[in-house]
């Protein structure tokens, strides 16, 4: 307890505006030709919607995503009413209907862009804790807290750390400052600047990022202590050297988005640099095999783990598997084979290209798998000796907290980091030149849309905003460490398991009609 009560130095938050000229907000504000450029709106608005620079008297286009909308009506600085020319109009932004989906509705995307921009929780009224999927995390709520238990401590005094090695086997006892780290995204699937930015963010946040299966670019070497080397079925870029760089080595047996399939990298994204890294042919699609043809049993798996442990005596071993019905047995098997981290990846997440049929239908959603594995590890008496990580469809800070309360020690985040880099989830990551927004692309032109420092700071900002939410949850339940929350499913309720009067106390399930 002594350790956690000391004040921590948190990474610095810096405002990083959008890369795009026109931001998308919940509301639109239009300025008509009647504007006389008096500058009153800029003086009034405390949110920075109306800008005005010295020596420039023309009106600027409003910064729409900062506008808090109709709730501003009651304020005496409500620009729409105060404008002497009545030149401003405020509306709900109709474009939101075309943005987002059931799992990541438009408001959740906007809120995460805002968090990544400012490092704070959004001022605008946006629903960022719940999606529209009508099940799983979207129906689970934290119980109403007992106000007497409220712990009045600062964010800096909160402990959100995650221990990766609980085996006490003489290997480093690595502690991350956040209960999450970044998922594997490969060199080849993503712009190198975005990847390096993630590694820099991991260093700043004292957490980890992961190479994915596309090899280990040189640019990662300065941050090597924060980069997991992934050993996946394609074995691209897996060398003794790259295994020795890493503090953690991750075996990817399967990924939730496409269980039963290896990684996909379509030909267009295999540029000369990517091909050189992977030792393959330029322009030729790469379909990693499945499964590891060297592993057809838990004994074979143990050989894998032993091999990596021998190559890197200070490395921790993580085993990433998907969520079949017997995921609990697989987790226990992995532990006995010597893994430090059991990482289960549920079906609804993933960032890379995957057949739609696989994402939707194969393997179980992570919400079911977490309590199943947690309980089984407890019954086996090994829960305290293993770091149990969940991923796949964990979208926001609240989902992270719910996953931890269901039984995980921590989580792996992929999609939310991309959203922080202004991903709109259009899903065209794999085809042609790749991501039109410069995130998941290796195209020479598109790949330059992101700078490392932009990626780094946006991701740091988003996690710092999330951290605020986690701290608030912990305070409400009188906890000072997120480790106290692990497995506390007694603090959760599921709306379908409450009778009507109890259910009325909680925020109802969002059910917007969506066109998908």
């Amino acid at each position, binding site marked *: 307890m002594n350790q956690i009560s000391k004040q921590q130095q948190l990474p610095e938050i810096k405002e990083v505006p959008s890369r795009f000229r026109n931001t998308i907000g919940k509301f639109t504000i239009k300025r008509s030709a009647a504007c006389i450029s008096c500058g009153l709106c800029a003086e009034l608005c405390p949110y920075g919607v109306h800008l005005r620079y010295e020596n420039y008297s023309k009106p600027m286009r409003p910064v729409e995503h900062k506008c808090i909308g109709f709730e501003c009506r009651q304020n005496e600085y409500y620009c729409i009413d105060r404008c002497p020319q009545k030149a401003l109009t405020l509306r709900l932004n109709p474009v939101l209907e075309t943005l987002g989906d*059931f799992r990541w509705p438009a408001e959740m995307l906007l809120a995460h862009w805002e968090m990544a921009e400012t490092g704070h929780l959004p001022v605008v009224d946006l629903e960022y804790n719940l999606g529209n999927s009508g099940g799983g995390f979207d129906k689970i709520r934290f119980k109403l807290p007992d106000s007497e238990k409220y712990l009045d401590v600062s964010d800096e005094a909160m402990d959100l750390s995650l221990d990766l090695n609980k085996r006490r086997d003489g290997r480093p006892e690595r502690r991350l400052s956040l209960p999450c780290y970044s998922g594997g995204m490969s060199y080849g699937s993503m712009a190198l600047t975005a990847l390096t930015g993630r590694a820099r963010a991991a260093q700043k946040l004292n957490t980890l990022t992961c190479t994915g299966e596309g090899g280990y670019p040189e640019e990662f070497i300065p941050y090597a202590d924060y980069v997991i080397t992934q050993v996946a079925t394609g074995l691209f870029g897996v060398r003794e050297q790259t295994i020795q760089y890493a503090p953690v080595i991750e075996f990817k047996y399967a990924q939730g988005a496409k269980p039963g399939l290896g990684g996909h990298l379509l030909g267009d994204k295999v540029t000369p640099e990517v091909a050189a890294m992977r030792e393959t042919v330029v322009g030729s699609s790469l379909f990693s095999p499945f499964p590891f043809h060297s592993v057809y049993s838990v004994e074979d798996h143990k050989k894998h783990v032993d091999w990596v442990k021998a190559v890197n005596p200070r490395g921790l071993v993580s085993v990433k598997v998907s969520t079949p019905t017997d995921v609990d047995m697989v987790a226990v098997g992995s532990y006995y084979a010597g893994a430090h981290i059991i990482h289960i990846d549920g079906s609804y997440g993933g960032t890379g290209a995957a057949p739609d*049929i696989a994402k939707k239908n194969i393997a179980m959603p992570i919400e079911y798998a977490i309590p199943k594995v947690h309980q089984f590890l407890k019954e086996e008496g090994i829960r305290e000796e293993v770091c149990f990580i969940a991923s796949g469809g964990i979208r926001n800070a609240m989902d992270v907290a719910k996953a931890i309360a269901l039984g995980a020690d921590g989580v792996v985040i992929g999609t939310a980091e991309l959203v922080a880099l202004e991903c709109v989830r259009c899903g065209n990551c794999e085809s042609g030149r790749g991501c039109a927004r410069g995130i998941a692309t290796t195209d020479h032109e598109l790949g330059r849309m992101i700078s490392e420092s932009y990626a780094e700071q946006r991701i740091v900002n988003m996690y710092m905003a999330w951290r605020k939410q986690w701290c608030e949850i912990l305070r409400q339940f009188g906890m000072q460490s997120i480790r106290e929350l692990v497995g506390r499913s007694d603090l959760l309720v599921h709306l379908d398991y409450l009778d009507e009067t109890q259910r009325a106390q909680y925020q109802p399930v969002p059910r917007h009609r969506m066109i998908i």
Partner: protein
Amino acid sequence: MPKKYHIPTKTAPPRFHPVGKYTTVEFRENCAGSCRMCVKKNCVYNIFTENMLHASTMAEPEYLYTCMSCFRCIQECTRGIFSRAINPDYRTLGDDYWCSDILHRLWYQAHTGKVPVSGAGYRGPFVAPGFDSMWTDMSEIVRPTRDGIHGREYINTCFELSRRVTRLEFNPDMSLASAVPPILELPLPLLFRLSPDLMINEHLLVPMARAAQVLGTLMFVRPQDVTPALSPYAHSLIPCLTEADFKEHGAMIGNSRVVELADAPGIEKVFNAIRNIQPEILLMVGIPLDSRAASRAADLSLTGVDSLHFYADEHGNELNAASPRFLKEMVREVHLKLVENSIRQKINLVFSGGIAMAEHMAKAIICGADAVTADHALLIALECRLCGRCRDGLSCPVKLDEPLDMQWGSARIVNLIGAWQNQLLELMGAMGIREARRLRGEVGRSMWFEDLEREHFGPLFGERKVSGLG
């Protein structure tokens, strides 16, 4: 090793602009029209190249269909004049079951022959009625998966339409004593059938029959729809006859491998008459999928019929019921009834209605079907929009009531089924199952919403207080 079953796909672009989901909206009054930075020039997907054409011809702009939702034009236009909206036609496409998203995916598959692939995770609801409340299992470490989709391992998707003898008997001289009925094995657990609710005409049937021939599957057809143009494909057709009219169609029976009889009391009495016309013929009985279907199946399975074909409605619902059950429950009921009677192994079950996506094929088989039929999906492959105008005798917006290029039509259907087969391989590969026949009734390798909730959330949250999906 026998030659692998392979479906040859080839791009077959649509004849009409499909109804697109999005449209971009411009407010031109603020645009000078000669901006050097115009986002239309910079579109990554080049969807605005023919942007000017539609204005003069009054045609639908092509970007209605091709917009890929990257939002860059909206976010980068120097004047901020771009916006987006959902195409109003898209909202009214299809119905609650055959929703616009399904139609879009079917069009894509019929166009390209490719499996729909996307990035950034799943975007749909957590759980939904029908087949969307079950998941298929996968194998992990201890039960290796199969790499069928890239052809690196052989996965067999065959099923049989012929009845089976449960054991063979031999004479003292070791010659075979039991009579072995004819064997008919089809390479895909999928048959074709055009639903009479929508359009049936020769222009549609010929490309479909041709596609059935290319794929090695069979198509159900009513005798009144059979025209001379279908005669080259007689071997790929299953005439749907009745007790009353089968005698009139002796020639058709003679040319077919399988014939279907509509169920009627005492239908088994005509089996012999049909086998007298063509001794090798396989018999199938068409049964409405209602509350009596299971007991009827049990009765008929003792009569020497080869297969049973159950008809649900177009949404996969039970017929003649006030609160109809869905196909997956109905398949379970029929399958389990036959398992209970120890007769399931001898007979084959085919189900029609509501099969809209590749996963439905796999999930129906897991529930206990041997095969399913594609119905509306075939029409949609030919660009049908399920607008229902044909039901009212009105013209078809994609001209399916007029002659169409047979090559194109059959290529579209072959593409669709090719994509479905790859998706079936994908599911089976993930499960580590090498034979579609092993998938049948394998509910142990699937996960159902009710079970997952009870087993995983029950211990945490207690008793579930809402019924159904909540």
